[in-house]
């Protein structure tokens, strides 16, 4: 992306979104550090702890933390902050490693919890 006449520019319309910049926010990292994984409907929760002294939050880290005043699902956070989900995952990994956030993972396998399923059914019926 050097000049305005680069052949790639015609793909850079508003639908495409920024192509390079998002991963610049993660310094090129495409997977969260520390082995954390964040499913779309996992819920992140602020720990209320002070960050490690070595942690230097970026403006995007701060934006994420400002949305985590209560428990918030990853997909809502990504939607709210308007960054690609992959970028949000990397930034969340940093915040978990820094001790500022924890994640409550939704089940990865088939949903077999009958109580949960009944709760969902009753909720839908109440609409």
């Amino acid at each position, binding site marked *: 992306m050097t000049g305005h006449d680069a052949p790639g520019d015609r793909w850079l319309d508003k639908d495409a979104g920024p192509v390079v910049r998002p991963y610049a926010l993660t310094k090129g990292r*495409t997977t969260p550090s520390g082995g954390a994984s964040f499913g779309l409907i996992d819920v992140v929760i602020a720990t209320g702890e002070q960050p490690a002294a070595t942690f230097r939050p970026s403006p995007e880290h701060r934006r994420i933390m400002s949305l985590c005043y209560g428990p918030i699902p990853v997909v809502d956070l990504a939607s709210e902050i308007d960054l690609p989900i*992959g970028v949000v995952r990397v930034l969340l990994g940093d915040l978990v490693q820094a001790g500022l956030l924890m994640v409550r993972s939704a089940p990865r396998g088939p949903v077999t919890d*009958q109580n949960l399923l009944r709760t969902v059914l009753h909720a839908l019926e109440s609409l």
Partner: protein
Amino acid sequence: MRSNHYDMTAGGDAVPSTVKILIAGGFGVGKTTLVGAISEIRPLRTEEPLSDRSVGIDDTSGVGAKMTTTVAMDFGRISFPPHLVIYLFGTPGQERFWFMWDELAIGAVGAVVLADTRRIADCFAAIDYFERNGLPFVVAVNCFDGAPRFEPEDIRIALAVSPEAPIVLCDARCRSSVKQVLTSLIRHVLSTTSELSRN
């Protein structure tokens, strides 16, 4: 009070249970209409792996780790504060977005396969996918104005869907109809899982 459905954090905020339901079907069958009829639509930016075709078009030189380009998708959210949030994810219809299906399917409660009787073959791929992955699904036939009407059992034969999977007729524009589709899915999942726990 202790509940299976949510935990309490140190701050006292309830952590909601989150569930997701997939809405699949061919391009233009009414997935977005269905999601919009019953839920709040929210935007999400996600990534598409750069295919061989786009290498050389998207300039990736100097961004060694970048293997994707961003694409926009929508999802639906139905909140029941403070304990439950139901998410509806439309699975992308076009083949080039199939890479996203696996992520969407992980941990999903089940799926709605939306079908159009004028282009019934468009939903074969979705049915194959869910049968292969063992994800419970219902087939919802979107009754477009002017489309031929068929009995659910005729549609079952046409789709070669097993007798367990419910087939319902619906109007994807109509909230009460979509509600009926979703409740029939959850009832189906409940009966599937209770059979599993008995065996």
